[in-house]
């Protein structure tokens, strides 16, 4: 097979950090190459060098045999390299066609060739199996459709090599699977693809070949058919990482009970007669495609939104009307969905974030003054106990990696001895090592008798951790099933809302 792309000996340093260290990589025509690595392994830097956003300190980039001048994105575009960024670069108030044309026409041209452009776009969409309505406003499109527009944008500029940076980060599982099918079809049209990922199951499902980066170095290349997720995980992390396993144990008495709870926000019904029970020493998993009411469920159990009907009780106490502080006092611990937006104040130090929820308790304040010594000692304890790396109590929290930030949040929740824990998407965006650590902490809390409600979009995670699983669809919850009876097919049906038909049949 012909090599369409060759990166040779790429090295790139930022200050003292070596982001890429003598990396060599090739791509063959019609191939799907997965670039696998943990956050910070240098994947995105490497692709930015290929695309000309950065100039490498050493090494060469050859596309179709010709060497690219460094640091010129236009040169990369001209020879047929297209990049689809993780965060979309689309103008919401423009149409699909306008977004695709943007920047592809010379500014000096008097009249834009809309008709021709439309023709070309439709032709490309047809050929690559990416149907779009050119006149639709981007703002009105779903996330999956927007991504399609991003890909079309690259193809419109005659890309023959496409780079996708974490293309599934914003997609739900079915959308992600559809994307990979589309990508597979596109290679039959002669395209070559590189996609960046840290999700093993995606890499296994969608790629021909895998290149693994670790600490800026290329540590391994494998044919996908000749490797397995275990080996890839080990290569990626550099040591053997195994996610901890849940062992069946005896479940205790009910702790948190929701009885026909309704939640309305902005005049819309978000949770519709939801009932569930979480017991001592149990993890109840709530699975579902994002946007089906998980946010409201999380808000409800965090004390941020309140039921308009039904009862919510924690250890027989009615908690439906309580705010965050009341919830904590009642024995609830809360891990928010979005670490950066809700979990921590990035500009504050670790110790300030560690005690933020309990600033007004006697443990951390006296006569209106913060007991800084007590707070710092407490935080030092968290850092040690929860293995938060590269930080002291006075470090600014935004400097922590996602995994360490999550450990801080888990630490502040779990050291409080909560009877109930809400874990909302606790491993989203984390790398393999951090996921294992978070899972281990949740299982340890379960073993100590906490009742845990896990909201997750990752099926593997929900099945591995949960004792029982319920699916959330359009604000309604399915009946719980035992995790031991859960297979992907059954869960897939539940997430599609098929349980109701089963009920009728029974």
């Amino acid at each position, binding site marked *: 097979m012909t090599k369409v792309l060759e990166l040779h000996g790429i090295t790139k340093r930022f200050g003292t950090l070596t982001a890429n260290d003598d990396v060599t990589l090739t791509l063959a025509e019609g191939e799907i190459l997965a670039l696998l690595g943990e956050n910070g392994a240098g994947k995105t830097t490497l692709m930015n060098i290929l695309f000309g956003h950065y100039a490498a300190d050493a090494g060469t980039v050859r596309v179709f045999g010709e060497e690219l001048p460094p640091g010129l994105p236009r040169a990369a575009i001209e020879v047929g390299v297209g990049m689809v960024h993780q965060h979309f670069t689309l103008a919401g108030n423009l149409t699909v066609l306008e977004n695709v044309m943007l920047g592809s026409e010379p500014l000096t041209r008097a009249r834009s060739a809309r008709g021709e452009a439309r023709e070309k776009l439709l032709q490309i969409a047809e050929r690559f199996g990416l149907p779009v309505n050119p006149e639709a406003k981007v703002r009105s499109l779903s996330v999956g459709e927007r991504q399609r527009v991003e890909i079309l944008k690259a193809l419109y500029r005659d890309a023959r090599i496409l780079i996708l940076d974490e293309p599934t980060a914003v997609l739900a599982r079915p959308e992600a699977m559809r994307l990979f099918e589309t990508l597979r079809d596109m290679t039959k049209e002669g395209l070559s693809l590189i996609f960046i990922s840290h999700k093993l199951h995606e890499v296994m499902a969608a790629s021909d070949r895998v290149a693994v980066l670790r600490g800026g170095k290329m540590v391994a290349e494998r044919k996908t058919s000749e490797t397995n997720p275990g080996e890839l995980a080990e290569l990626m992390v550099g040591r053997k990482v195994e996610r901890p396993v849940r062992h069946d144990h005896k479940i205790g008495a009910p702790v948190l009970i929701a009885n026909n709870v309704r939640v309305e926000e902005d005049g819309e019904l978000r949770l519709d007669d939801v009932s569930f029970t979480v017991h001592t020493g149990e993890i109840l998993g709530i699975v579902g495609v994002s946007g089906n009411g998980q946010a409201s469920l999380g808000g409800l159990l965090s004390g941020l939104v309140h039921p308009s009907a039904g009862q919510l009780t924690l250890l027989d106490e009615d908690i439906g009307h309580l705010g965050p502080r009341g919830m904590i006092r009642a024995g609830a611990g809360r891990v928010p969905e979005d670490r950066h937006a809700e979990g921590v104040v990035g500009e504050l130090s670790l110790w300030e974030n560690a005690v933020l929820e309990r*600033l007004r308790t006697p443990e951390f304040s006296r006569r209106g003054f913060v007991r800084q010594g007590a707070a710092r000692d407490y935080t030092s304890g968290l850092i040690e106990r929860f293995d938060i790396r590269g930080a002291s109590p006075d470090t600014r929290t935004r400097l922590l990696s996602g995994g360490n930030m999550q450990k801080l949040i888990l630490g502040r929740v779990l050291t409080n001895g909560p009877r109930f824990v809400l874990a909302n998407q606790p491993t989203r965006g984390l790398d393999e090592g951090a996921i294992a650590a978070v899972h281990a902490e949740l299982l340890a809390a379960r073993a100590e008798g906490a009742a845990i409600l896990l909201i997750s979009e990752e099926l593997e995670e929900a099945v591995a951790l949960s004792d029982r699983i319920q699916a959330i669809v359009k604000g309604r919850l399915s009946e719980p099933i035992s995790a031991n009876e859960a297979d992907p097919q059954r869960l897939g049906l539940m997430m599609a809302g098929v349980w109701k038909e089963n009920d009728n049949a029974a």
Partner: protein
Amino acid sequence: MRLERRTHVPLHLVVIAPLAAIFTALLLAAGLIAAAGVNPLTAYGEMLAGALGSRLSITEMLTRATPLIFTGLAAAVAFRARLWNIGGEGQFFVGALVTAWIGHSLGVPGWIGIPLLMLAGMTAGAALLAGPAYLRLRFGVDEVVTTLLLNFIVILFVGLMIEGPMRDPLAFGWPSSVPVDGDFRLPDLIPRTRLHIGLLFAIAAAGAVWLILARTVFGAETRAAGLNASAAAFAGISLPRTIMGVALLSGALAGLAGSVEVMGVTAGVTTTMSPGFGYAGIVVAMLAALHPAGVVAAAVFVATVFVGADAMSRATGVPSFIADVIVALCLLTMIVALLFTTYRVRR
């Protein structure tokens, strides 16, 4: 070229930023001075001599710095919590007016009356900012607009009062309010100068504000709410209560500025008693990077410009409005300087 966020802002940059901003502002203003036909170096020399050249001029400058410390603290406290209080000028005047009104006929000894009058001025300033804060929390009304417009309303109201009910019959037709009783005049810090013990109050206020912001639960909650409102709400910090608390503190500090100015300097209220202390407080707060200790230093600088500009004007004929230009330029250059302390420029 791109901007990259610094992981850590080194201390020397924190100190250099305002100095560089001031230097740049003076450089830009030098162009205007040159345009007025005067050598900028001569002009700045006169300015420095006018503000710091003699014992008297130094005390004059410190007298001017006193209300600036209060209004600077008022702005710093509010801005830290992202409450954009542009109404320091109005709060200054209500504090002054209430002090003169009560202080004219209050029949208690000075050592009781002075603290009482300060409290009255603080209450008036706090009350004036409570309204806009409530409107923002309840209806989402932009406080920049409401506080700014209130300034004009308050100054017109002051004019009404000193032409009418509070007119001083002994002022020979000068539009001035009745003065505070002699018992409530603040003692001089240095005899035979205008410098009064209000300066010590202002420095103590800076210390108190630092203590509140850095050490109390209220300060910690304010910081969290100002930096990330949704994380603060998730942690159970009540945003309305935090914003209202900040508004009361900020308004009280600006009101105190007016109260102390009346008891320390003017005795009665006139519409011209403030050369824009409330607005200049915003510049002071920004130059101080919203830090209470920095506020004291920045207030001294702005007072130097104000007092020095008068002397420069007398000596060289450059209009003393150049002081307002320099102070305003400082705000702009400081905002640019802050960009460079937060970000690093990368090629």
